[in-house]
């Protein structure tokens, strides 16, 4: 399934009334599929609750951007705060859900999404480690396989970690996984069977 379809599925899974941070890139798409009556409030780490949608550059107020520095809108009931307060909110466990992209997720919930480990790469972490450590639930939105066909849900991450044992759900183009103490449960598939998943992934899977 494509990014839009996946975003729609994730949006539907976010509990009504939740406070949610959507990471830079693909997860930003989810905002478009949140129902206004769900009462979901978006947090952006650069200091705002009640963030609205991304707007085109010609409508931009450049004092009002999301974490990806895209211009956004302010919804009624919004609140602004500074960076230390914003990250206190994240680190203190007040956000119900954050959704981030990932290079790799380990079966035990380890997340790798900030550094490929390539020696010539310029490292950049932003707020990813703070979100991984702080949100009540960390969900990942990614493709299940790299362009080369390598699985990104792995027994143990080979890329440098962003956070340990923090991911509780992995939403991918072909399957959705819930991670917990009992293991990795496949809760939905799209165009792939459970048996195919067990063959292609090096991770024990539980059928939902």
């Amino acid at each position, binding site marked *: 399934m494509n990014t839009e379809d996946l975003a729609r599925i994730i949006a539907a899974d976010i*509990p009504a009334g939740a*406070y949610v941070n959507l990471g830079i890139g693909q997860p930003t798409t989810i905002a478009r599929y949140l129902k206004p009556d769900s009462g979901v409030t978006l947090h952006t780490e650069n200091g*705002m*609750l009640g963030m609205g949608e991304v707007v085109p550059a010609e409508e931009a107020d450049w004092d009002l951007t999301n974490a990806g520095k895209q211009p956004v809108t302010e919804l009624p*009931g*919004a*609140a602004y705060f500074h960076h230390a307060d914003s990250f*206190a909110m994240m680190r203190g466990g007040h956000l119900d859900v954050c959704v981030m992209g990932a290079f790799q997720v380990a079966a035990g919930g380890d997340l790798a999404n900030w550094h490929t480990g390539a020696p010539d790469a310029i490292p950049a972490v932003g707020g990813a480690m703070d979100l991984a450590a702080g949100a009540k639930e960390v969900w990942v939105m990614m493709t299940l396989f790299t362009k080369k066909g390598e699985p990104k849900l792995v027994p143990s991450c080979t890329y440098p970690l962003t956070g340990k044992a923090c991911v509780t759900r992995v939403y991918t183009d072909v399957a959705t996984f819930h991670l917990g103490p009992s293991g990795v449960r496949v809760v939905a598939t799209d165009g792939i069977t459970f048996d195919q998943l067990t063959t292609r992934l090096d991770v024990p899977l539980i059928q939902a």
Partner: protein
Amino acid sequence: MKTEVTDPVTAVKEIKDGDTVLVGGFGMAGMPVELIDALIEHGAGDLTIVSNNAGNGDTGLAALIAAGRVRKMVCSFPRQADSWHFDAAYRAGTIELELVPQGNLAERMRAAGAGIGAFYCPTGVGTPIAEGRETRVIDGREYVLEHPIRGDVALIRAHVADRLGNLVYRKTARNFGPVMATAATLTIAQVSRIVEVGELDPEAVVTPSIYVNRLVEVAA
């Protein structure tokens, strides 16, 4: 999750015997008197109360102490001319006191709300407050290790709320409210007025709605 607008008695109904309750206010300014009245009516006891003072006169926190519901007070300044209910309980040995410097009280609750595990604080170094405590010299200065204070419940008082739970305060009645709101599992705010969403200036909101679980309107 979504902030609930309710009445004082319903708001406090899950407070249990033995809970730690953060109570806003500096003296009477910012004290959530009607929420405390509801707590007295509700009946939970054996409480640990975290508040700057130990009650004034015969209302609010003083009434809760007088009713024998408080096992332990965590506060910075229990000794006031009108804190006779605390004085009596303390001298009778029926209430325990943990004395915390005022800034440490605020910062330890801030740490709880901000996910800080512990912090090194210069306050109280070389005083009885630091006796037997872990200290460390950092860049030539001595600090004491301080730990977060978390509440099961926070009872605070603000000025105006919108229906989402965003809060603004009034003058020095702001005091401990914003910090306590972040440090409790369940935060209940008493306000003078609830307005529609969009009526508060987003630049001037002091406590964002994410920190407020229940709202009670009590005309000032």
